[in-house]
């Protein structure tokens, strides 16, 4: 059969076999071992915290999440007030940081002259590397005394809005003492906000600078103003990066310890009034109490730390998936 002979002559794709020599095998082995080690370390963080937290969690049961007190020796403790306090501080921080970062990132990419741009980028990146304890100093010694009058003014005139209410302030009476307004959630949140602003700004700037020039010019060519270009091109393009950056900032804000610890005066009940003196967060509680704790108290602190860890982990996962799915991508 002639046809069969033709078929036999048809080119068969040669089987490609990858042969790795010894150095390559060793390299891949060592690299994989490094990856596995890192993964193990990261998983161990959760495991060890869980093991150490188990006695406290077992003792407290579900009431751990509903109790507003921290008295491990009396077996009466829970993270309800801590979580609310942590989230409130982080929310204040994000509320302040997001508009500021958006404005700064837009200024850098849209308005600033070239020279100003490089200087600003340098300043913002440097501020992201400044230790949190320095921000704490600034908040405690500089900001607090200057912000208290503003808080007093807000409380006096906007006290009817629930979160701005301060106990001991009557709308018609002049305020006797400003100490009601120091060490509050607002001040702690403001300092943490200053701390996370550089982080958020640099992510947003990165994303905004990737906006395709063609789309920008198309909007300008259609007669758009600069504000129009920002609204219709820059912000929609950078939305994913903005959300991702904000959530990364939120993660940082939830975990901030020292600056918050320096500013707040701890309370262990839910404190929804952000101007009122007294606030709490999980991480500052750990820093505050670990030295005086016995082994059960330490276990309770580990349980609180584990809760914080899981929350930040969740927020980070969400942030990276948002960033990865957005048009601007995960390059930042």
């Amino acid at each position: 059969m002639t046809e069969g002979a033709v078929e036999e002559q048809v080119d068969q794709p040669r089987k490609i076999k990858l042969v790795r020599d010894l150095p390559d095998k060793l390299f891949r082995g060592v690299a994989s071992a490094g990856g596995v080690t890192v993964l193990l370390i990261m998983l161990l963080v959760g495991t060890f915290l869980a093991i150490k937290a188990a006695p406290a969690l077992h003792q407290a049961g579900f009431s751990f999440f509903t109790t507003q007190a921290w008295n491990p020796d009396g077996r009466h403790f829970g993270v309800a007030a801590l979580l609310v306090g942590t989230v409130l501080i982080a929310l204040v921080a994000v509320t302040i940081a997001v508009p500021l970062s958006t404005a700064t990132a837009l200024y850098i990419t849209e308005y600033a002259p070239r020279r100003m741009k490089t200087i600003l980028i340098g300043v913002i990146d440097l501020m992201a590397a400044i230790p949190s304890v320095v921000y704490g100093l600034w908040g405690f010694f500089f900001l607090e005394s200057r912000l208290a009058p503003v808080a007093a003014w807000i409380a006096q005139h906007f006290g009817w809005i629930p979160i701005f209410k301060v106990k001991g302030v009557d709308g018609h009476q002049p305020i006797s003492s400003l100490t009601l307004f120091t060490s509050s959630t607002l001040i702690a949140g403001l300092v943490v906000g200053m701390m996370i602003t550089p982080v958020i700004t640099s992510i947003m700037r990165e994303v905004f600078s990737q906006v395709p020039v063609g789309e920008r010019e198309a909007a300008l060519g259609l007669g758009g103003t600069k504000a129009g270009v920002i609204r219709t091109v820059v912000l929609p393009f950078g939305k994913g990066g903005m959300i991702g950056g904000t959530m990364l900032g939120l993660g940082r804000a939830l975990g901030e310890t020292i600056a918050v610890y320096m500013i707040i005066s701890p309370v262990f009940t839910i404190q929804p009034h952000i101007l009122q003196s007294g606030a709490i967060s999980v991480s500052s509680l750990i820093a505050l109490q670990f030295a005086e704790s016995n082994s059960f108290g330490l276990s309770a602190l580990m349980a609180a730390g584990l809760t914080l860890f899981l929350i930040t982990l969740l927020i980070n996962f969400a942030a990276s998936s948002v960033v990865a799915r957005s048009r601007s991508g995960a390059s930042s």
Partner: protein
Amino acid sequence: MEQPTTYLPQADAEVVSGPQVRRQTGGVRIGDALSLIGAVLAALALATVISGQIAPIRGFLAFFLVTYALFLAIYALLVWLDEPPSVVVDRVVAVLVQSGAFVLVLALTSVLTYTVIRGRSAVVHSNLLTRDMTTTGPLDPLTSGGVSHAIVGTLIQISIALAITIPLGITAALFLTEVPGPFARFTRTIVEAMTALPSIVAGLFILSSFILVLGFDKSGLAAGLAITVMMLPIMIRAADVVFRLVPSTLKEASLALGAGQFRTVLNVVLPTARGGLTTAIILATARGIGETSPVLLTAGYTASLNRNPLTGPMVSLPLAVFEFVKSPEPTMVARGFGTAVVLMLLVLILFVSARIVGSQDVAKRARRRQQRKAVRGFVAGLVTSFRPATSDVATPSPTATRSSDA
């Protein structure tokens, strides 16, 4: 039915006949500047009236905020008088964006300047850098005592952290880029999620594992390990980004020449990524140096110098700042600010060196190396020209230097 027709507007004869004048597109119109200045003045005046008569305001900050809100409203009104709404929005957005950036820069500079101003009185005494706090009480003047113990502690702890982070971090980042697969993807997800690991959780982890379970003391080593756990994800993520930026054409060229994967990594990937890697290491170091809470949990505070990372408490600079400013004594607080200035200087030095390294790209470095080679060759040529040249080794040719360079 009539045909649709396009009518061109008739140009004015006199305009066409005259010489054409180039229209100015840049610059500032006098009306714009005036409305801006007018809005500022009006806002100031109104704010003074409001704060004095209607709703008394205490403090400069509150006054400023009220003025700003009034300024925005008045400015929008002024622009609206002779511009269409879209221009009003544009102007207001421009003001908002620029003032937002200005406020941020102002606030951030005030963080730095305030610390430097308060720390000035302590920094001018050189004993801050050379003495420790063993014999210095809270009431002693700034001329006694110092933070040498904290500086040494910081250096030891960060060295421990770097000794683990650099090799492990780079290996893991190489794993993520060079051995791709579902497992690498999973590891990358975990590492990325851990970049924002709260530093206190890193401290708690070392406290629960290294100190409580394995039974070691609170020590500099424990603090170094805690900082490692915190720095490792940051380092890996940055290195991963740098490795992914290595052009694949370079790698493919190396593979096509017959080099194996290991050779390619060693001779192409790592040298190309060297600048970026150094930047990543330095920035991670800056983060690690500034962390207070892991050290607080795992090393504790001490007033005396401890050079041994294996036993006893070992203080670091941020922890020293934290402990100093807890004291009610003004001299201790000043000392705390001085220590903060030392810490910031350390971070600044690291940051600037990261910038310098990061700005040097491969091409520039290669060009500089070639120049250096050429100069050396030229000098060698000069030297050998005075001796009887025996062979062509003495005459440096560009090709010869380049091949010996590689």
